[in-house]
């Protein structure tokens, strides 16, 4: 059982690298969709000894929202704004992968410094959660396209979700559902904002946001 949890967690890291290396927006959307499904699988695996109805509810909600609803919505936004590639990010793709590797090493170091008090699902869980968060934040700051920033936000939320699933055992179901709902509405609002940005600026390039400054 441990090996399957480890493999799922490692697969999440591979999706992170996929996000860091892709310039095509459709590939990025596919990456977060994969992450969503993997999170559902991770949920099932970590709770495999007591699969209550609330675990199933959370799995369905997580996979439904993160794996299906978000990618569909993002795909629709993508088709509407008619941008398909991130042409010139602030930090190039090879460097992004190398920074991703550095982030992974940093997360492993942090993970070794934070010993979990309770039962441990996998020694890789906390480092991978942190590295997914770092990947998400890195995408937000290093990419110019507004849609990529939303995808970075989703990746960061996925990292936090991994942390929540593997490290925390005593959270109320309503809180987790509320969190998922909030993220859903947040992405929805961001998508609407991207529509408006595209209409106003004729592009979704955040680099053009330079009129408000001191």
């Amino acid at each position, binding site marked *: 059982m441990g090996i399957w949890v480890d493999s799922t967690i490692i697969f999440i890291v591979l999706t992170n690298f996929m996000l860091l290396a892709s310039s095509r927006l459709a590939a990025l959307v596919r990456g977060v969709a994969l992450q969503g499904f993997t999170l559902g699988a991770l949920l099932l695996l970590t709770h495999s000894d007591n699969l209550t109805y609330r675990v199933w509810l959370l799995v369905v909600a997580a996979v439904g929202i993160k794996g299906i609803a978000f990618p569909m919505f993002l795909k629709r936004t993508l088709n509407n704004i008619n941008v398909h590639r991130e042409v010139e990010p602030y930090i190039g793709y090879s460097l992004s992968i190398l920074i991703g590797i550095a982030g992974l090493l940093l997360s492993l170091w942090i993970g070794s410094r*934070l010993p*979990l*008090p*309770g039962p441990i699902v996998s020694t890789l869980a906390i480092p991978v959660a942190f590295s997914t*968060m770092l990947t998400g*934040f890195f995408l*937000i700051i290093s990419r110019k396209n*507004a849609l990529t*920033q939303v995808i970075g*936000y989703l990746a*960061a*939320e996925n990292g*936090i979700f991994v*942390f*929540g699933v593997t*490290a*925390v*055992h*005593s*959270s*109320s179901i*309503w*809180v987790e559902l*509320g*969190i998922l*709902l*909030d993220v859903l*509405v*947040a992405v929805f*609002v*961001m998508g609407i*904002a991207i529509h*408006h*940005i595209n209409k*106003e*600026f004729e592009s979704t390039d*955040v680099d053009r*946001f330079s*009129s*408000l400054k*001191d």
Partner: protein
Amino acid sequence: MVLLGLIFIPVVMGLLALVLRHDASRRLLLPVTAVIHSALTASAWFDAPGPVWGGWLLLDGLGLLFLSITSALFLVASFYAVGYLGKEDRGQRQDFQEGVIFSNAPEAAFVACLLFFLASMTLVTLCQHFGLLWVGVEATTLASAPLIYFHRHRRSLEATWKYLMICSVGIALALMGYLLLAIAVPETPGTGVPMVVSELMRLGTSLHTVWLKAAFIFFLVGYGTKMGLAPLHTWLPDAHSESPSVVSALLSGALLNCAFLAILRPLQVLSAAGEGPFGRELLVFFGLLSMAVAAIFILGQEDYKRMLAYSSVEHMGIISLGVGIGGGAAFGAMLHAVNHSFVKGMLFMVTGNILAAYKTKNTRKVQGMLRLIPVTGVLWVLGFLAITGSPPFGPFLSEFTVLKGMLDTGHTTAAVMYLLLLAIIFIGMTSVVLKMSQGAPSEAHQSMASREIYATVIPPALLAVAVTVLGVYVPLPLQALLHNAASLLGGS
């Protein structure tokens, strides 16, 4: 019941606003809801309502204080908003800054989002459960983003996007803090501990220290982004300067306070676990840093709304500093929360009037307010005096209390920096405000001025009166509440 009403009545009214077609009756929803909300809040002063949902919602001293501030400010702002919406042109008009044609968002969306905003802020003040608190703060972000984008042009869109992204990332970090806090709870056999403030404080020193401290750091950075603590404040000047004045008033006066409340709850748990000094030192550091950053950016500021936004950063720094010092300074910080909200709300409403009269946000182009729009001009000068801490206004009393607290506990270097930064900010703002109000208005503006209407002048005037009264005499019930709130934070 009262608590549930406080949250759900604005939500229902907001949904009603989406459905109503008639503009005037939709605008009336705002004052009506505000009056109901204030009545319920006032009743809570006399008769403390009991906990709801198993202790997840509870009105303690801190919550009641911030709820009252929010409710009072929204009451005044709602009347202002009715006048403001009445004066807004329908359809398209020209942007005075860049000359682009733009239009407003549909009014129904604006009114509805204002009411949802009130509901979510109320949720934050009532909440004792950390997870629900997170949901509430995220809800305030989502409810206020469309409000910033009311005037639909490029700059407000840029401000809205920055607000959405930065605050969402900050709140994601706060979620991490919540998870770390959950880990800090020791494993108990059975049903587990609910993540409610009182339960966690009861656990006290049995919480795992490392995880608790890590959780507090994440909460501070995450909710601090929402509160406007430097260096996480970068969304604040843009959002406050591009949104309509009534929204800026609510953002500065109510939302920043609620975000601070979200930081105070983990501080309570931290103090109960014996790690209070760690958290308070961080608050002092961020408080002084915020004041310093605000001082740097206020000097030479050319946009008066941005100046007020940086002033909000400064005052949030003062409040954080006061709570961080503890003791008498905590009382001063709580009093300052009240004073700052009222004064800042009034100032932003006044800027709405200035903008309507002069059609520019540039401080160099505004002149002779005292002649052109006299009542607004007087309020502007009074507000400036109040916000920079001159007697006889309220903020003077609260800032002085914080200073006294600092000197009493021996934080002399911090006190010196505090006074120095306050002086710099005073100098920065004086040159701007006095130049704007005195002198003669230029020919172009004289022809453009519209007469001041009561609805946009009386609400700020009321707030000015309240601040003056608070500067001289703090009513006893309010004093008792402030002491109660401060004692919850380990002060007096």
